[in-house]
Every structure is written in structure tokens, then in C-alpha cells.
């Protein structure tokens, strides 16, 4: 899983900022972008976040993969709104029995939603690139997210890599024996692969529990301890949120 942030995040100023401050800024920006009626704020946020991603030296391949799906969805929404929604007709083309009609107000609505998608995705992507998973979990515990939920998240994250390795081994073995040579065989092989993953998940959960009980597990996993807030970080983040709030209000 090369795409997870742990595998490429560099030493830069964003990783050193307290995760609670980062989460507060990200959540505030998300609320502002989602509730903003216009283009300026989402575009400003996108440019800012893209700049941060470039400064973090995120590999281009990872960057493109991260943004390809939201861009695809934004384009679909734009086309849907442009062709099927709105009243002010821009053009009308007859294609056999189908009439395609473009709407000016639909286009503006579509662009507005597309900007909102890209703005919101950029914020979360910047957070994901700049913060390791365990730190985000520690931050969530400070926000009073139930401990049981965070523990399950940590188990899931840990075992994604283990199960992925298992999945690759099974997949390669199936592929070498022409397991995906036709749709029917492919479906059978895929069912076997996922079924094997479920069996492995059961086995891993039993083995992990035994190992953890031997090391004193009583049903709770300790979280990372938080350091006290740094005054300059808090002040800078409040100032930043305030500045964005001014743009949001305009």
C-alpha cells in the first residue's frame, strides 16, 4: 500500500504541527467549503492545498491517483447538471431521436458543485498526506470519538497490510494456474480469494487475541499521549480560520 501517507511523507513543517490543530483547521475548512455559495473559497482552498502537497513532495503518480476519482465524479456531475438541469437554454442539438440541451444555469450549478468537490478533496488529501494514521487516531480520541471505535480502526488499519500480502500471494497463485482466463473462472477465483481472506481474518483475530492476552490485553488498547498545545500553533490556526472565515462571509 504505497499510497498510504506513511510511505512517503517527508520531514516538513506540516507533520510537526499538533494533529488536533490540523484536524480543527481541516474540519473548519470543510464546513466553510460545503456551506459556501460561490467559487472563490473552494478555488482558494484548492490552490492552497495543492501548493502544500507540492511542498510536501508528494509523488506525482500518487497525487494523480488521489485526484483522478474526484475529478471523474466532478465531470459526471457537471455533465448531468449541464444537460439535464436548468431553464436558460444555451444550445440544443438533435441526435436522432434524442435532443441534447445545454443549460447556462445548469452549467453554473455544475461548475459550483465541481469546485466544491475539488476544494473539499484537496483539504482531506492534504491532511492524509501530512499526518500518519496513528496520530490521526490519537487526535480523534481527543475529540471524544468512542475508544472502542478507534480500537477497531487501529486493528483494521494494522491488518489491511497483512491481509493484502495474503491476497497477493493467493492472487498470484490463481493467476499462474489460469484462474482469471475467462469471466466464469475469474468469478470463481475471486470468490475463492475473498473467502480465503475471511478465513485468514478469523485465524489472525484468534492468534492476535491470544498473543495480546499473553501480554496483558484486557480489552483496551492504550492511545498516544498528547503533548500540551503550543500557543503559536493555536494562534496561527485561529488566525488562518478567521481569514478564511472572512473570505467565506464575503
Amino acid at each position, binding site marked *: 500500500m504505497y499510497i498510504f501517507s506513511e510511505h512517503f511523507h517527508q520531514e516538513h513543517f506540516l507533520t510537526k504541527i499538533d494533529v488536533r490543530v490540523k484536524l480543527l483547521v481541516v474540519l473548519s475548512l470543510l464546513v466553510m467549503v460545503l456551506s459556501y455559495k460561490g467559487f472563490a473559497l473552494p478555488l482558494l482552498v484548492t490552490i492552497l492545498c495543492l501548493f502544500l502537497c507540492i511542498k510536501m513532495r508528494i509523488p506525482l503518480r500518487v497525487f494523480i491517483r488521489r485526484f483522478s476519482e474526484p475529478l471523474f465524479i466532478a465531470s459526471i456531475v457537471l455533465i448531468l447538471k449541464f444537460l439535464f438541469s436548468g431553464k436558460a437554454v444555451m444550445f440544443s442539438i438533435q441526435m436522432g431521436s434524442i435532443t441534447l440541451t445545454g443549460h447556462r444555469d445548469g452549467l453554473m450549478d455544475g461548475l459550483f458543485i465541481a469546485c466544491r468537490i475539488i476544494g473539499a478533496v484537496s483539504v482531506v488529501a492534504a491532511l492524509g498526506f501530512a499526518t500518519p494514521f496513528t496520530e490521526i487516531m490519537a487526535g480523534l480520541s481527543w475529540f471524544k470519538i468512542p475508544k472502542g471505535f478507534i480500537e477497531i480502526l487501529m486493528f483494521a488499519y494494522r491488518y489491511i497490510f497483512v491481509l493484502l500480502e495474503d491476497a497477493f500471494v493467493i492472487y498470484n497463485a490463481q493467476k499462474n494456474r489460469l484462474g482469471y482466463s475467462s469471466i466464469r473462472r475469474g468469478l470463481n477465483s475471486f470468490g475463492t480469494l475473498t*473467502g480465503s481472506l475471511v478465513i485468514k481474518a478469523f485465524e489472525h483475530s484468534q492468534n492476535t487475541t491470544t498473543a495480546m492476552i499473553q501480554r496483558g490485553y484486557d480489552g483496551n488498547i492504550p492511545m498516544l499521549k498528547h503533548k500540551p498545545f503550543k500557543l503559536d500553533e493555536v494562534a496561527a490556526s485561529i488566525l488562518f480560520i478567521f481569514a478564511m472565515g472572512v473570505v467565506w462571509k464575503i
Partner: protein
Amino acid sequence: MKIQKSSRTGRGKIQKYGIYFLLFTVYCLLSTDSAHAMHISEGILPFNWAAFWFAIAIPFVAYGLWRVKVLSKSDLSFKPLVGLMAAVVFIISCMPIPVPTAGTCSHPAGTGISGILVGPTISILVTAVALLIQALFLAHGGLSTWGADIVSMGVMGSFAGYLTFRGLRALKANLWIAGFMAGLFADWATYLTTSVELASGIRGDSPFMPLFWKILIAFIPTQLPLGILEGAMTAGMVVLLYKKRPDLLVKMKVLKPEEAIS
């Protein structure tokens, strides 16, 4: 002349960067090897709709969490098991499956099988965990659309899968048929709910129903065959578990002990 030259250079630069941006966008769109149609992307829903779907999802997740807490008291391995099931759902819903009619790839939801194995309430929690990791680190779905995604994939997918499987088993259907129909209906229920969420979120001042039907029809080329593929995959999984580890199906109360022996 100098000013003219510099303005021409400036315009040329803008054109050059414009072309780069266009090429980048086209490349991103073309490199979308997998259409993750089940996940509603970050930012697509306005604030009020995002909050609405959160309000619906939170009680389900809280109930699932409470059930895990109760079950973990008697069996310490239950919490790791739920975490591992979340990892399995994460991996399944990241696996691209070729969709012949659309000429592209899509992904299964995986909530049908988790609904069958751990029950719908805990399956919702499993889905919520998998969706949060995908939103934070893969940009599949999003933080703001987490609630909507939990409702469509977790609540609707898990309940549809679970109820179909249980209903068909009560009618004495064999494991393959029950598993297939559970996977099929879990996928289609997810896709139907996603269409409702999308139409209500992006319609603006337009009426709801026409846009809903258009989104539903737009999804058909991928989701109709994908539902069948997910059904076959779920059936294959259930049958494999029955052949290799029937004790697990008994432990998870999917089968009665006498059914496992026969």
C-alpha cells in the same frame, strides 16, 4: 514595445499553463481505472444534506459499537475480529472488477458478506471503519459524505444482504442461491440509495424525481452487471467457507450445527 512583448509572453505563459492543466485533467480522467460508483465523493453534498445523512447514520453506528462492547466482554477476540472484517471489506471494496458492458472496472461493496457473517448492526460498524480509512487516505468517499456512504453501503447494503440471506434460507434455498441473492440485493440496494442521496444533494432548485431517474439510469451499465458479479462472488465466498470452515459459519450463527454436519 517592451510592454507589448511582456504581455504577449504573459499570455503565452497562461496559454501554456492552461494547456498543461487541460492535459493534466484529461490524464486524470483517463487514468481513472476504477469507477468507484458506490462512494459519494467528498464535497458533492451540500452542508445540510451531509449533516442530514450523518444524523441518520450515527444511531446505527452507535448501536453497532454498543453491541461490540457487550459481545467483547464475553469474548476478547471479538473486537479484533470486527477490525479484521473491516480490513477485509476495505480490501474487497478496493478490488477492481471488470464490468464488460461499461468497458471499465468497478468495485464490489462487500457489505453483503459482512452482513451475513457478523449481522447487519455490526456490519454497519465494519463498513463505517472501512469507509473512514478510504476517505482519509485514498479519497474514496469523503469525510463530509461519510454519513451518506454509511447509510447507502452500511445500513442499506448490510440489511438487504442479511435479510435476503435469512429469508431465502428460511425458505430452504441452498447456500449458493441464498449467498448470490444476498450479494445481488446488497449491491443494488446500495446503488439505489446512492442515487437517492446524489439526486437530493445535487438537484438544487430542480425537481427530485427526474434527476433521480437520470442518475439511476446512468448507473445501470455498471451497477446492473456488477450486482450479478457481486452476487456470484458472495455465493462463492459462502460456499468456500461452508466447505473449508463450517465451524466458523456455526460460530457466527449463519448455520445451525446440524446443517454444518449434513
